[in-house]
């Protein structure tokens, strides 16, 4: 299976970016760009035509929640599917992310099956929209 979907993977740990990238490649997604926090991700998002954003929350510089809010506040990016992939586990945080318009929330440590399931769900609702 291969796909032309364009992914941006944002995490400050290069190990986690590599894990997500390898999993996406196993799922047939090969167009993957990486960024290490919100500050580096946002200009990439504004400049490129990404189809989906997968971001960590706890990062130096701009954290994932701020990146999500910035995406939703930008008229061109507002509808971009955003999957939060994070170790942040407080109910308050998940509620805040949902209210800020997150499309999916995967808690670390996660499994390949969970990531695939959430991605499929996001892409299905994206196709239906």
């Amino acid at each position, binding site marked *: 299976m291969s796909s032309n979907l364009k992914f941006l993977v944002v995490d400050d740990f290069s*190990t986690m970016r*590599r*894990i997500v990238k390898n999993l996406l490649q*196993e799922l047939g997604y090969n167009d993957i760009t990486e960024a290490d926090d919100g500050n580096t991700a946002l200009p990439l998002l504004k400049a490129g035509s990404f189809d989906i954003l997968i971001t960590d929350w706890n990062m130096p510089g701009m954290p994932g929640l701020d990146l999500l809010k910035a995406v939703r506040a930008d008229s061109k990016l507002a509808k971009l599917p955003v999957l939060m992939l994070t170790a942040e586990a407080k109910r*308050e*945080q998940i509620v805040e992310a949902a209210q800020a318009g997150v499309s999916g929330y995967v808690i*670390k*440590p*996660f499994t390949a099956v969970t990531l695939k399931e959430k991605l499929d769900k996001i892409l299905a609702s994206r196709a239906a929209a």
Partner: protein
Amino acid sequence: MSHPDPEQFRAQVAALQGALDGGDAAGFRHAFEALSAQMDCGLLPELKRITATAQSALARFSAEARLDVLAGHEVPDARKRLTHVVKLTDEAAHRTMDLVDSCGPLVDEAARGAASLLDAWRSYGERDLAFAAQWPESAATYLQRTRADSERLRANLTELLMAQGYQDITGQIIRSVIALVDELEQVLGKLVCIADGNEVTSMQRALPAKLDWERGLGPQVAGITNGDAVSGQDDIDALLSQMAADK
């Protein structure tokens, strides 16, 4: 502190009064000095004792508490050690993933080879029974097992890759401890200044911004409660479904 005898005081005051009334300047000075000495002998030793205690406490504070060593070397070293741990785990995780990456094509090749030999055997076998008869049954069993094992190996490689996520989780926890060590270093530096008798005007470096949940709290750690946390992915899915339903 020893208290002067009131009778003695009374006698000295009377002597002072008598000298004053009698215009006896030398007598007055003598009586005044006696009274003053009487008062000092109670207060002075006590003051000296307090001063000495304070001085030795300050000396102990800077010498025995090893503040200088702690602030100057051991705490900064602790930070370097922790940073080094993050670096080592990062390198180990990448090394493991390099090996996983290099094993992937080998497994795929083994599976492909087994599958194509099995296919060839079957297609030849249908046309040429003599050819098929040359193949021992054990070869077919071996190829079938190789193909199945390759799938399991592939799955295990993916699990091996996922397991490297520990580096991100431990790294986040260690980074939060490094931030704490930074704060500790600031506080110790301030104490050293005080012990050395220097005035502390301001912190040399700004303290790191206080972590709050909007910036991210990092992973859950057993034994440390971090407020109201979810128990796992199922809990999150339920929470998000409930929120969507309540809309």
